[in-house]
């Protein structure tokens, strides 16, 4: 059963990846291109300022060593993007299926489709949305190379904390459901998750490395594109996997509906 669910998760992840890639290609890539153009114009301006300075001193203009291009832009924005999104989405599809196998029938009485949809919504909030509200996605040219270690640590730490808090909130909901009812327990657990995450986000250090003159609308559009792609991926994953799991589990379990006599 778990193996079949895992296969279903990987397949749902693959479909989600294709749609997510298409969305990124149409909505996200133009913003990436604009951000790279901004980066290049900044570098050119810097090189020109250096050359002018050298000329004023009567020295020959310094020759800038350009980094060799390992992967061309057309490859990065097509095969590279598809591979990256594909591996990411299928990996999350597989992990999603494993978590589904674990929670199905253990957290309330929701059916397979509903369990899958709720789980995907929780995954999207815990793994992408909550961490992104503190450390949002950044386009090229935003972010200093020397702080990559710190930024990666902070981001991954927040993702793990968020995931742990979401698991704790789910356990809280399960233990309260018997006493105050499922609806109230879910609301209480939801507020508990939000309260803890607001506290954690306020406690962690802020990162602001947007270069001067970077267009605000471009930053907004890039982040919205990132949000949209992730939301699309999780939605497809949750809904599609739910259909698959419902068929798989429903086929194994005999229907208990009474026959009208």
């Amino acid at each position: 059963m778990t193996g079949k669910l895992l296969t279903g998760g990987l397949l749902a992840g693959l479909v989600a990846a294709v749609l997510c890639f298409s969305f990124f290609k149409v909505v996200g890539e133009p913003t990436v291109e604009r951000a790279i153009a901004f980066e290049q114009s900044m570098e050119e301006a810097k090189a020109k300022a250096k050359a002018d300075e050298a000329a004023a001193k009567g020295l020959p203009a310094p020759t800038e060593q350009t980094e060799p291009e390992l992967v061309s832009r057309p490859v990065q924005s097509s095969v590279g993007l598809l591979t990256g999104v594909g591996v990411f989405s299928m990996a999350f599809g597989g992990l999603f299926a494993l978590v589904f196998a674990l929670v199905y029938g253990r957290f309330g009485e929701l059916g397979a489709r509903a369990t899958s949809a709720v789980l995907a919504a929780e995954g999207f909030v815990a793994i992408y949305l909550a961490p992104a509200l503190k450390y949002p996605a950044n386009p090229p040219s935003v972010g200093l190379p020397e702080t990559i270690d710190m930024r990666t640590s902070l981001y991954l730490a927040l993702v793990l904390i968020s995931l742990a808090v979401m698991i704790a909130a789910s356990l809280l909901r399960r233990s309260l459901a018997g006493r105050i009812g499922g609806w109230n327990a879910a609301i209480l657990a939801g507020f508990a998750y939000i309260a803890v995450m607001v506290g954690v986000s306020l406690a962690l250090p802020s990162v602001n490395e947007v270069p001067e003159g970077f267009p605000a609308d471009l930053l907004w559009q890039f982040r919205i594109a990132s949000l949209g792609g992730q939301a699309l991926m999780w939605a497809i994953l949750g809904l599609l996997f739910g259909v698959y799991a419902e068929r798989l589990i429903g086929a194994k379990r005999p229907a208990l509906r009474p026959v009208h006599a």
Partner: protein
Amino acid sequence: MTPATTLPVARPVAIPLREILPWALFGGLLLMLGIYFVGVEEGAVAMFKGMYVHEFVHDARHLLGFPCH
């Protein structure tokens, strides 16, 4: 008067933990390695020398929300 009858409801049946465990261990590890390569490799930490993996998945890393550069 007909006696009151309760309809049996199909309750979800949990999958036994011992069936999930081996899949979760090996599958989970492999899948997390995949996420690592898309999100982190050749950024903050690196298994391979060079920047090829980083550059290849560059756009996906940015758009998926990972810190890059």
